[in-house]
């Protein structure tokens, strides 16, 4: 069992709080949703993998409420929401997260969105993370994407029993190999190298 049962009354209350106008209350609700998401799933279990996106833990209506503040004008709230989306949403949230991960002006928000994509997984998330790993101007965002790709590839090998020679996985490994050689940041090169070593092991 990946997930434990969630107090639906509490979940509903938090989502309602999220739709109110008071930004401080929205921020609190977003943080609490993130915590609740983690506290109600098992340790060490990946939500999604390279090929299979995580199942949503919310109804479509609830997911819409959750995604709403993602495009708001408060970076703090966008970050907390992005985190919560990674814990609760399924593949339907990927386009919105991908946009934030690639275009948000705030690098911390892009990092959180990239990490959320890595939790949800699936092909579109992988493609977005590949793009970010190559192109984002901030080394921490590229690093987050690399770690995310590593997590998803690892989950695929373990959960989906996909061999590392699979073409999709092989492409990602090739990309990591390229990044570890040419990225301008020593930190990013180190992470790419470490992720490759880890996957090889």
């Amino acid at each position, binding site marked *: 069992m990946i997930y434990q049962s969630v107090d639906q009354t509490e979940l509903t209350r938090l989502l309602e709080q999220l739709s109110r106008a008071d930004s401080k209350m929205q921020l609190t609700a977003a943080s609490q949703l993130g915590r609740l998401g*983690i506290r109600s799933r098992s340790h060490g279990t990946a939500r999604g993998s390279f090929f299979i996106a995580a199942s949503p833990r919310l109804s479509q209506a609830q997911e819409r409420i959750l995604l709403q503040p993602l495009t708001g004008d408060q970076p703090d709230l966008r970050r907390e929401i992005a985190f919560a989306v990674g814990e609760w949403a399924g593949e339907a949230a990927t386009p919105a997260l991908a946009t934030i991960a690639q275009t948000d002006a705030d690098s911390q928000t892009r990092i959180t969105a990239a*990490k959320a994509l890595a939790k949800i997984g699936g092909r579109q998330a992988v493609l977005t993370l590949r793009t970010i790993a190559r192109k984002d101007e901030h080394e921490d965002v590229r690093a987050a994407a690399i770690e995310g790709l590593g997590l998803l590839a690892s989950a695929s090998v373990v959960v989906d029993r996909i061999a590392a020679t699979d073409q999709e996985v092989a492409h990602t490994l090739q990309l990591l190999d390229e990044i570890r050689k040419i990225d301008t940041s020593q930190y990013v090169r180190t992470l790419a190298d470490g992720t490759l070593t880890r996957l090889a092991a």
Partner: protein
Amino acid sequence: MPNSSPALAGQLQNWFRTWLNRLPGEEEESLLYELIADGPASLVDQLSPNELQQWIRAWNKRFILSLGQELPRERFLCAFTAVEDTIYRLDQAELGHFVRWAAAELKLSVPEFTHQAATRARTGKNGQNRSLTDESVDLVDLLAALLWAWQPGRAGLRPAMMDSALREQLNTYITARKQANPHSVITLLGGAAGNMAGVLHGLGLRVGVYWTYHAPDLAALCPQSLGRLALEGNKTRFYPENSGDPTHPKRRSVIFSYAPGLQTEPEIEAETGKPESGFKTEPQTFDRQIYRYPFFVRPERGWSKMVLAAPSGQQVPILDPDDRLLRGEGWPFLPLFGEWRESGDTFTFTVADDAQIQQIARRFDYILLSGLQALGDPLLNLKNAAGQEINEPARHFIQQAMRRHLSLLARYGVRLHMEISGLYNPPVARLVRDAIQGSVKSAGINQEELAQITGSGTFRGSPFFLAARRENETGPTGFVRRYERALHLAQAFNLDQLYVHGNDADLILVRGLPRGAVRQALLANLFAKGVVVLALLRRSQSDWQKEAARMGIVLKKDGFLALLAMADAIAQDTFLVHPDDRETILRQFAFNGYWYNRDPKGYSVVVVPVMWPDLPPGLSTVGAGDAVSATFTALSLL
């Protein structure tokens, strides 16, 4: 001047990099989960989940980047303690060997032998009805000390083996075990200075050593390119470490290292058919039991009198009436720079004069001191039948000479760092404090010894003691208590830096430094703590690289919670922080790893979560504290 060791230079650092390259992204996810799902909400919920994620990432990045730091080219001298450490690795089979052998030596059955040992462990008394922690008088005491330490909440002791027959008996056994099972016994350069020099040399730093006696057996354990400083006439010279002198005495420790789960019951059952035992206990953690030689030994010594000589010509005897303590074979340990000679029936130690100290100061930038607690050595605290101290003048002479040496070195610009260890009672602590005050501004100590000096009943009423609180001293809030103890000790010793190496997080107190130096201390600590694990592996196992490749750094919940608890405590401190700034202070401390005290007389606080990997079974951690402290001091250049 010592050279760095080309063959070893950077070897550990290179390996450390490889090792961290394997740092898995899963570690961050796993730690985030553990903190939010299992951490105390009162602490963890002060940061949002996203902030926690960013926080962990920031530390992880800092850790990785700390590996790229340049190693210093300053010159380090490690003084004064070096011993030969013989480590006997106990697994269940070796414990069985030992128990059966010892029982047979005493002509006892295994149940009778273990029963006697259990009785002594229960009472804490040795075979002469004195404390087990002070002395092992026979083979029963050796097992009793183990069983004592294996009880919950206890740790390994350091009893002395005064009786040469017992030492010989144990040596014979250990030698036989080494032949039968080579993996079970390793011999290493030990002692605080030996441990320090070993790890710094392995890092490729320019390090030399100084100790009074250098027997061939000890020399054989030293890396060959390590330089040993010797004072001869009015000169200081360097010798390669393989040049031991057979006229020198030597000192050994026999160390039983053990792993969780060992039991004596299977041996009893093997003999009697039933697992009878009135004292069921087993170690809960990896630890060790050190059986010390009480002094340096060379039985065929030609002297019977000991004299301390000052450069001025003043002489003070060290008395040992009827060879009561040294028993015709022991040699005094003197934590001083100087030169000794045997002449007729007299052993004379002449302390270094100012010119020699100046020569030392010119050769070194840093001196890492250990063994100063020898001021509390039984020889220097001998009493006559009337209970009067007979070596008080000698002790005073040594303390004054120590004070003069340290004061001169400090005045010549040498940075002095001391590892605080073995201060078992307030008088010894006072002697050491008075000897170093004003000269030694930097010290290291492990968390257990810090708790001992500032919290045990022995120290109650002394200036080192800090009254206990009701709060539990374990867990995140316990770490705050550790900080309070460290602050108290740093003030009691008037230190500018105190480094407390711990199992969950390291704590560094510094005062009078700019922020940049505080931050450098943090980066040095991250590096030091990890690289020492490799140093321990390297000295213990010939295939250490293979073993190292299997290990990985682990981000541990306890360390991060300790940091968060400390940040919270500082943020809540009314005197230090304006209430409006509390949230900012909490975040700054947690993310930066330090809180900067703007009062130049106050201490800034650095907390670094420990990221040690899980050590492979059987790895001896003897001397790890010394090694970590030395590496931190060398890399931080505080």
